[in-house]
Every structure is written in C-alpha cells, then in structure tokens.
C-alpha cells in the first residue's frame, strides 16, 4: 500500500504563543501529503454508489442481474447485503446504510458497485434497475410537522423552548421580522474518500477522511456486525471538513464492498456526488420580535424558528438547541420566549456546519438589532453596546457567563478601525470586476456591523473528553517526544498545536505527531471549536504525567516514558425540556465584524470592500493559525451573505456543482484586518477560547447590514441575490 499516513516530525523551537511552521506543511506544498483520495493499494478495486433520483419514493424492486454481468464488476450490493444494523446516525439511528423500501431524499444510497475501474463501476451502476413508486415530497419546514409523517415518530425532530422572565411584558418600541437562511454547503475541497482494506481474519482497516474516528468506527462496526476491535480506522489526509464530515458518507459502503470481495476498495466522490454525499447547513425560517425602551435597552425578545433537518436527523437536535439557547445573541435580555423546531422533510439531510445553529439565529437577531437601531434613531453600534453582555451576564438559559465576554470592546475595536478609501476607480475593484459592468455609476457604499456568540465544546451534559498519549525517549543523544491521539487534523492545525504544547510543557524541541487512529482512546470530534481546548488539554495533562517521571533529567538512557490519559472539560447540564433553563454550555466565544460594501444597484452586484474582525481567543496558542481561522471563517460567512446556497425545488438539488454553487474566490474576498484579544478563560487550558466558529456567525449579518445601509432595502433573506437588490 502506498501513501499511508505518516509520522510528522519537526525539531524546532516553538512553544505556545509562537507560530512555528506546520509539520505537514512541506509535504502539502510538495504534493506529497497523502489525502484520502490519494490512497492506492495493490489489487484495489473502485466502489460506486447508486443513488435515488427522487426525494421521496417507495422502492418496488431492485434488479442487479445485468449489472453483475458487466466485465470487470466484482460485486453489486443492496441493503440485504448489510450484515449488521442497516441504520445509523449521530443522534438518532434513523438513516439506512442502503435504502430498503423507501427513499427519503434525492441522492439516498440504494446500491453499491465494486469494479476494476471507476468507469466500469459507473457503467454497471446504470444497469441496475430500480423501480420507484414516486411519492409527494414534504418540503416546507414550517408545515412539515402536520404533513405526511416520514418517520415512525412523525416529523418533529426536536422542539427546544426557552422561557425566561415575563412572557407577556410589553415595550415602548417593538420591531419584528421574518428571516430566511438558505441551505449552505461546507464545500470542503477534498472530496469524500477512503480506502477499506480487508484482513484475512475477517476484520477490516479503513483509511478515511473524517472528523471523528471513534464515532465512525462505532457506526461502521454496528453496520458490519463486527466487534469494535475488528474495525480499525486510521485518519488519512483530510481536505477540509467544516462539519460536513461528522456524519458517515462512504465509510460503511467501502467496508461492505471490501469484505464482500476480499479486495481493498477505494471510493472517491466527485463534486456532484459530494453535494449529495454529506449533510448541509440547515436552512431556516425565523420569526423575531424585539421590544425595547426608548433608551434602547431590550425589554424582551420573542422568537419562533424552524430549522429544516431534511430526511434524516443527523445532528439536528443539537443544532436546534444551539439556535435556541444562543437565539438572542450576545445581549442581556431579562424576558425571553423562544421556540425552536427542527423538522424532518424530504429535502437534503442537514447537520453540522461551522457555526452550528448559531449562524441561522445570528443572521436574524442581528438583523433585528439593526431594525431596532433604526426605530430608535440610534446607531447600530450604540444599540448593541447598550445591550451587550459582559462577564457575569445571565444567558436566556439562566447560565451565568463566568469568563470574559468583551462584546462592547469587540464592537468598538472594529468601529475604530480606519475605513477604506472611497469607491475605487479601478474597474477590478468595482462590483462586477473585469466583467466591465460599471465604471462607478450606480455604485453606492454601505457600512454594517454585527457581533455573534457561539458555544465552544459539546453541550447539554455530553461527556466530552479526549485521550492523549505522550512518549519520551532519547534520539541522537537528546530527549525526543511523540504524541498520539485520535483527534482529527482536518486542516485547522491541531498537529502544530500539539507539538507546541509538548515543547512548552516538556522543553523538548523534537516532537513527532503519530498518525491518528483508533488504537488509542477517543479524541472526540473535530467540531464545536473544541480540539485545541479538549485534545490540547489532554496533551497537556499527559505531558504533566511524563514530566513527573522525567523528574528534570535530560538523559534517560534506554528508558521510554510513555503516558496516556483522558482529559475532560467541566461538566455541563441538560436543559429543562419545558423552560430551556440549565448550564448547558462550557464556554462562549465572541467575534464582531465591520463590513464595507459597494453595491451596483442597477445590476444588483455586491463587492465587499473590507471585512474586519475582532475576536477574543482567550490565549492565541498559535497566532498565525488563529488569524487564519478567523479569515477563513469570515470568508465562509461572506459566502452565505452574498452567494452560497444549495437551491432545491420539490426536494431536488438544482445546483450540485462548483459551476452553479459558488464559493468566494480571491476576487470576492476583501482585505481583512483582524484584531485578536487574549482575555484568558480561567477554566480552560492556557486560558484558550475556541476560535474556529465565532467569525462565521458575525460575518454574514455585518455584510447584509452594509448592503442594507447602501441600498435602504430590507433584505430579510441570505444569501442576498442580485434580484433582491434590483427588484426584478
């Protein structure tokens, strides 16, 4: 087998607070880093997936006879070939590995082909005859609960109510609105892929791009009907994730084909299949009413929100809880009424994406804050600062925020940054760019602000921990360390952070990061901005054990010091199912943005001229990586603001390609000036605060606020499209 994941060693100075180079950086720039889609094995065959063309249909028959006859085909499998449990899911086991008698979304896997060439597999797939009895799909999230039940328990996945303070208080100034958020895609560049290698004893190795090895393993083992120890997962190179790899895609499928044929099986989705192959960000409809007194102080916030989970639950329950508990934003509000509903429909399944429920709520509550500012004749920044939470504030859940919450300070930081020069005369810097659509005529400028809040780490009483092993021995007469976890590096730079922590704790420069796999305990998910916090905490704890045994020695001869430990953050609680009260979250992260836009009002084209951000990160363990996260997160927020949406019609995806689903290019991104605050959280290792998600929340509403300021339009839906601006 070639291109197995390798050890990453660097022997350089660079503890926490510095920005040493990533240990995988050289491999990546040389084209030698082994991503999951690069794996190759002697004798391997290729897997392909036949998917449902219908959003909702009964399967009346599946005939694989002709497909099996295609030369080069090794296997054609259907649900009856799934030896174990044919249902999986992160929170509810409601999703079939292969459809049985019904398909609930367009793109649902129905059958698998293993063949000697990807093209052979595709040709054979076309010879599988599936007959469908097409049913009327459920597509409206607001009425889904009363529509045809798609699952035995009906179409409500979860309702989270929040009740705090008075439920019928009135206010002098009231603003209300209905907001919509379109379905965003993670659009990680490395497609879903992996290689399953069967062993002679009936066990299996899977090399895979994922965000959580252990939960993948548990689900794969259950579907294969194998004991956990017979399913070994190793993290392969991951080309980005952003939530889209929390759920299974081809994991079980490749293993099924491999066990069935006795051959290594490689599966790689192409871009179109990738759009069908992973969950997306929940589209949402959100109703809000804000009441305030004449000074701008919020009296109450009431909201009803719907999040479309699509055909299967995925992480919808947790997404709904986030939207609800963070639903009023980073503001002090004494009287809160929130009802958040996550529902099943026949739209594409939705689950985790960077920001996880906080993004949808953030667009709505920040739009409301602007509306309130306008109703009061206050500036958008002033009305936010008037209500900004700070350390000691109480959340709508009753939880007291017990570390820094510098909301007002973040807003002031972005407000005080210099503004860019006026609208450019260089056509390349105007809306439409070199398409030569304007030379400045019809172009108006606007400035907008937003601030957001995100919970960091897993919430609601989840036992959230990570496992780390640190081994120290002598290499070339000097102490050297190796660190081993199952925590997934997906691009964010955890490999660098782990090396930095070891250097700081042990004073050892040469640190090797071992491949991440399931031979060690659970590392938890690479999500909820939690890995530096939790796996970082575990590595730090393992170092402490090693350090005690080192006892100051610089030479340990032939001794090998090897320590493994689990580390967990402080416990959280479930929220009360009727009132939503409870200490649900571990930590809160905050970011604020100021956006400056130029809008060509004749054509409805937007150019974001500047997108500046201020964020508190507690402690920047790697300042360069922190800024990279903030810039990347801001870019994804820009995408949601002005271009990114999976468009569906009757449950069918209309734009599953990078031709029709646009993500920001270098021409779309403005310069971003980033201010990083380091207000240590005493509860977290080194005082850190999760970084990855907060910037994705405030970026979108800041840009839309700027477009509103430029055009005077209400703009209640993202992404904002040209027709929203021109009214055509």
């Amino acid at each position, binding site marked *: 087998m070639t291109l197995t994941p390798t050890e990453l060693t660097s022997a350089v100075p660079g503890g926490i607070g510095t*920005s040493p*180079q*990533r240990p*995988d*950086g*050289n491999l*990546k*720039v*040389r*084209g*030698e*880093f*082994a*991503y999951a*889609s*690069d794996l*190759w094995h002697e004798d391997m065959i290729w897997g392909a997936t036949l998917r449902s063309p219908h959003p909702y249909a009964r399967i009346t028959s599946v005939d694989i006879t002709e497909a099996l006859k295609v030369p080069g085909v090794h296997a054609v499998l259907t649900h009856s070939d799934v030896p174990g449990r044919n249902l999986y899911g992160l929170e509810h086991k409601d999703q079939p590995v292969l459809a049985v008698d019904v398909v609930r979304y367009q793109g649902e896997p129905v059958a698998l082909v293993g063949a000697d*060439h990807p*093209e052979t597999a595709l040709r054979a797939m076309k010879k599988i005859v599936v007959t469908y009895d097409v049913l009327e799909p459920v597509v409206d999230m607001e009425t889904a609960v009363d529509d045809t039940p798609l699952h035995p328990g009906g179409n409500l996945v979860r309702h989270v109510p929040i009740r705090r303070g008075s439920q019928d208080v009135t206010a002098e100034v009231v603003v209300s609105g209905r907001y919509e958020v379109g379905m965003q895609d*993670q*659009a*990680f*560049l*490395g*497609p879903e892929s992996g290689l399953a290698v069967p062993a002679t004893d009936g066990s299996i190795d899977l090399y895979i791009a994922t965000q959580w090895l252990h939960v993948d393993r548990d689900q794969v083992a259950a579907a294969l009907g194998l004991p956990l120890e017979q399913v070994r997962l190793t993290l392969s*190179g*991951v*080309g*980005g*994730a*952003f939530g889209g790899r929390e759920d299974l895609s081809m994991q079980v499928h490749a293993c099924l084909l491999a066990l069935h044929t006795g051959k290594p099986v490689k599966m*790689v989705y*192409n*871009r179109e299949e990738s759009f069908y192959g992973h969950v997306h960000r929940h589209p949402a409809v959100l109703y809000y009413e804000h009441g305030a007194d004449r000074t701008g102080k919020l009296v109450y916030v009431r909201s009803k929100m719907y999040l479309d989970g699509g055909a299967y639950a995925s992480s919808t329950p947790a997404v709904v809880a986030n939207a609800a508990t963070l639903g009023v934003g980073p503001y002090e509000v004494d009287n809160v009424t929130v009802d958040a509903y996550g529902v099943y429909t026949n739209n594409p399944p939705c689950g985790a994406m960077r920001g996880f429920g906080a993004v949808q709520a953030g667009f709505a509550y920040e739009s409301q804050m602007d509306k309130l500012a306008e109703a009061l004749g206050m500036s958008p920044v002033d009305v936010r600062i008037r209500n900004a939470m700070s350390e000691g504030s109480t959340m709508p859940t009753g939880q007291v925020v017990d570390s820094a919450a510098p909301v007002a300070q973040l807003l002031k930081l972005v407000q005080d940054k210099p503004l860019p020069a006026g609208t450019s005369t*260089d056509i*390349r*810097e105007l809306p439409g760019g*070199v398409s030569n659509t304007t030379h400045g005529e019809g172009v108006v400028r606007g400035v907008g602000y937003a601030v957001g809040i995100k919970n960091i780490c897993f919430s609601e009483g989840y036992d959230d921990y990570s496992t780390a092993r640190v081994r120290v021995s002598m290499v070339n007469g000097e102490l050297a360390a190796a660190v081993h976890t199952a925590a997934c590096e997906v*691009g*964010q730079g955890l490999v660098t952070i782990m090396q930095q922590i070891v250097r700081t704790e042990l004073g050892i420069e040469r640190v090797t990061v071992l491949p991440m796999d399931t031979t060690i305990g659970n590392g938890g998910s690479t999500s909820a901005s939690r890995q530096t916090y939790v796996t970082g905490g575990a590595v730090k704890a393992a170092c402490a054990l090693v350090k005690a045994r080192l006892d100051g020695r610089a030479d340990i001869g032939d001794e090998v010091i090897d320590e493994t430990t689990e580390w967990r953050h402080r416990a959280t609680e479930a929220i009360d199912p009727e009132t939503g009260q409870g200490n649900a979250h571990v930590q809160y992260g905050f970011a604020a943005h100021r956006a400056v836009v130029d809008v060509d009002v004749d054509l409805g084209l937007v150019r974001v001229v500047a997108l500046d951000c201020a964020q508190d990160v507690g402690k920047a363990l790697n300042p*360069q990586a922190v*800024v*990279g996260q903030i*810039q*990347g*997160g*801001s*870019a*994804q927020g820009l995408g949601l603001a002005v271009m990114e949406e999976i468009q569906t019609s009757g449950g069918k995806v209309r734009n599953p*390609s*990078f*031709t029709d689903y646009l*993500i*920001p*290019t*270098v*021409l779309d*991104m403005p*310069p*971003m000036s980033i201010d990083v605050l380091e207000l240590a959280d005493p509860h977290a290792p080194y005082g850190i605060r999760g970084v990855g998600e907060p910037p994705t929340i405030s970026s979108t509403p800041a840009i839309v606020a700027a477009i509103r300021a430029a055009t005077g339009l209400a703009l209640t839906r993202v992404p904002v499209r040209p027709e929203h601006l021109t009214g055509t």
Partner: protein
Amino acid sequence: MRVNVTVNGEQRQADDVWEGESLLFVLRERLGLPGSKNACEQGECGSCTVYLDDVPVCACLVAAGQAQDREVRTVEGLAEGDRLDPVQEAFVEAGAVQCGFCTPGLVVQAHDLLDRVPNPSDPEIREALAGNLCRCTGYEKVLDAVRLAASRR
C-alpha cells in the same frame, strides 16, 4: 490506448488508458503522482493545475490523449530535491496552507505568475489566482505568500 508523456522531466508511459480518462486521472492513478488534486474534476477549482508545455492548465479538463508526446510539470516537479521552490517555501511560512487541498494548484499557478510577472501588484495576483478555490484561508495568507515569494525571487 497507450499514452507517452514527459512528466517532470522523465519519459513516462501509461497503458490501458481508457479514452475518456483525463490527464489528471492518468497522473494520479496510473503514474503515481497524486499531488495534483481532484476537488471538482470540472474545471472550476484549479486544484489540478499543472504545466502543459509551460502553460498552466486544469489537468481534469485535458484528455489524457491530448498530453501525448508533450511535457507536463506537476507540483511534484517544482522542488529541487530537499530544496523547496521559493513559492512553496513562502506558502508554508506565510500560513497559506491549512488543509492544503488547494495548495498544489495554487502553488503551480503562483509559480507561473511570478515567472511572467516578477513583482505583481495585488490586483494582478488576484487576477492570476481567480480560478483557484480555497475554502480554508479566505485567501489573505495566500496573498501574503505570493508577495513573500515575489520578494525573494
């Protein structure tokens, strides 16, 4: 069919190539050069960018047969032994590499830009890299990397 092509200065041959295969597939799956990436395979992302006779192209859009008797230079052919090309070095140093899936394409594209325009302005850099998608960085550090590489060449 059989395809003969010079890759990174070496004469290479691929057998049993199906006529629908792209140059990208042949490089990645038949010649053991998976450095060029396959993020879209439809000409939209630039992750598969290689030089074909000194001109950067999307290898996913080039039919393997079109590369017959021509010269291809991939990301694997930029470094000299252990010595990275200045563009590669700058990408690592500037923090322009996160997941790195866009990196091979961006590195080849930036390499070509700096060969043609040794000191590009920001709008020139943006224009040159406009066909290369990156989902992780927001491009700021990619621009930093190209500026840094330009300053060193």
